[in-house]
């Protein structure tokens, strides 16, 4: 199928692609199929609850879901031939644990071997994202999905508490807040329509339309027809080591507070901001470098190109790496963007819950897993994407994998009183599982069960 210039039909696109849901309760169910009839029966049973991107006006659904299929899942349920299936991008076909993807993700074999889903022997075929306005609504739809899975003979992965609990959003963590205490999900691509040279255009995320930045595919043949109006989701379970993070802040705040003339409490917040590029209230260092400013907590109108010394925002601060904005890149073109639909899982850290699992349920939506998600992740693990960065072997200060061969895990924070040097950053975030899914169009989901 040739790519189309017409505007996509919102009724045919799964809702999470085009809008961030504000339902406070969510659960993410992870499955392996057993048989084709069982898998098709499962999808047919939950299809009525799939939410499209159409405007729901005042009639906000009490409960709803979206469905993702991995390449192995797609092979089970689709009518595509082997030749058709070959047309999907290699990154999607091979999956996140493959040698090719690990060149970017660098999770490390010893870590991948411990993944609770998405590694050899723990194949994921389908992920169902269920949302509810309240706990009863969520539980009602989760039960419908779980019952349909049992009826279809599916195997469900329970990633929490030694395989006994589902991956659920922890609803009492403040919305858009993560366990390290930062406001999250502040800046999303605009998803406008009609500019194929814009990495934030909807065409950079939706398959089947011309876009010169991410160039989503497949765009040809039966695979192109199947994938049109779909979008990829790099689905990750990311453990956040709050104990290590808090200890790091405490230890370093005590050391740097005298040098900077700050109280230990202020030095703690200063260090947290330097790691992230935004203060914990969300206000960006580029706009308010000396102290947080709640009025700027959702600010997105700023860049990094004027900060050529890193004096306001360190070069390898997380936000400066994962969304470089107007940073001058060493490669041609503009930096890629991702749609992020993540949420926190697990109870907040305290002395009673210290040993429990907690972190981020990461939904990273993109039109190309390699040109958007993996490219940004490679920059996170090695900050070599801009010649202005003095350390070409450095790493994202918050979420990089420190065990990556050759990585320089040091962190330099330029200040007017001389640089603050952190010899080696700890591992703050550990991947627990990954699945590369296609969020197919609603017409494609219907075609699967016909």
């Amino acid at each position, binding site marked *: 199928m040739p790519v189309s210039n017409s505007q996509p039909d919102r009724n045919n696109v799964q809702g999470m692609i085009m809008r961030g849901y504000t339902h406070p309760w969510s659960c993410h169910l992870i499955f392996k199929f057993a048989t084709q009839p069982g898998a098709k029966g499962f999808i047919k049973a939950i299809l009525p609850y799939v939410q499209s991107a159409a405007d729901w006006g005042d009639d906000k659904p009490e409960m709803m879901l979206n469905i993702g299929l991995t390449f192995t899942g797609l092979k089970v349920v689709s009518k595509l031939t082997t030749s058709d299936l070959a047309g999907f991008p290699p990154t999607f076909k091979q999956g996140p644990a493959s040698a090719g993807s690990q060149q970017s993700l660098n999770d490390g074999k010893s870590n991948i071997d411990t993944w609770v889903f998405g590694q050899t022997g723990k194949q994921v075929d389908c992920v169902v994202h269920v949302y509810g306005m309240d706990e009863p609504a969520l539980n009602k739809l989760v039960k419908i999905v779980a019952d349909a899975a049992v009826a279809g003979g599916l195997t469900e992965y329970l990633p929490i508490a030694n395989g006994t609990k589902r991956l659920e959003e922890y609803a009492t963590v403040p919305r858009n807040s993560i366990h390290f205490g930062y406001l999250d999900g502040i800046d999303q691509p605009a998803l406008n329509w009609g500019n194929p040279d814009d990495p934030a255009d909807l065409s950079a995320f939706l398959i089947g339309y011309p876009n010169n930045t991410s160039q989503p595919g497949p765009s*040809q043949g039966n695979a192109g027809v199947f994938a049109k109006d779909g979008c990829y989701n790099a689905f990750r379970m990311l453990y956040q080591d709050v104990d290590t993070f808090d200890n790091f802040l405490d230890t370093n705040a005590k050391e740097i507070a005298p040098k900077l003339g700050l109280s230990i409490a202020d030095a703690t917040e200063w260090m947290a901001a330097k790691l992230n590029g935004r203060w914990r209230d969300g206000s960006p260092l580029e706009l308010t470098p000396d102290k947080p400013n709640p009025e700027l907590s959702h600010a997105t109108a700023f860049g990094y190109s004027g900060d050529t010394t890193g004096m306001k925002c360190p070069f390898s601060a997380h936000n400066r790496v994962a969304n470089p904005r107007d940073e001058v890149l060493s490669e041609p073109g503009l930096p890629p963007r991702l749609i992020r639909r993540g949420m926190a899982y697990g109870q907040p850290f305290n002395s009673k819950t210290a040993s429990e699992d907690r972190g981020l349920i990461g939904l990273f939506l993109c039109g190309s897993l390699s040109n958007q998600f993996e490219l940004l992740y490679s920059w996170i693990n090695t900050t070599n994407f801009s010649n202005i960065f003095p350390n070409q072997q450095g790493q994202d200060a918050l979420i990089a994998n420190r065990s990556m061969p050759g990585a320089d895990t040091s962190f330099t924070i330029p200040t007017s009183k001389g640089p603050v040097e952190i010899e080696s950053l700890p591992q703050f975030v550990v991947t627990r599982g990954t699945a590369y899914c296609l969020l197919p169009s609603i017409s494609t989901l219907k075609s699967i069960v016909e």
Partner: protein
Amino acid sequence: MTNPLTLYVPIKQDAKTQETAQGIHDNFVAAVTAGLDASAIVHYARISLIPNASGEGFHAIMLMTEFDGPMNPYLKFFWDNPGTKLAFSAIAAIALTPPNPPVTDLTGFENFINNNNLNDAGDMYAAYPQTVKEIEKAFSTAKAH
């Protein structure tokens, strides 16, 4: 981290294909220099024609490179660059088993490269960890002094 790509493509045996293969080989460096320079991630790239066992003609064409960082995210830069795109497209066009569907977009290009790549990251020895950018920067600084 430096990674390898060894693109090994058996080619058709007719006279025109063999002549084209020789042309790709002879023009390779000129065709790709600008694109590889612009990428600033490729340490070396070379192309070889693999002879038939009989000694007459060529069995395959082989392109070998060593580059910084992951392969798949950076294939886009080679697809977007006219010189490197032309070189890779020319190789695909003379393949004994042509890509199906033909390579007309980035996804097709990614598949062609992955399907014909003989190497993985673990296959390669490197004497030094520095990237192309670091080496170029170091030597341009040294030259300036």
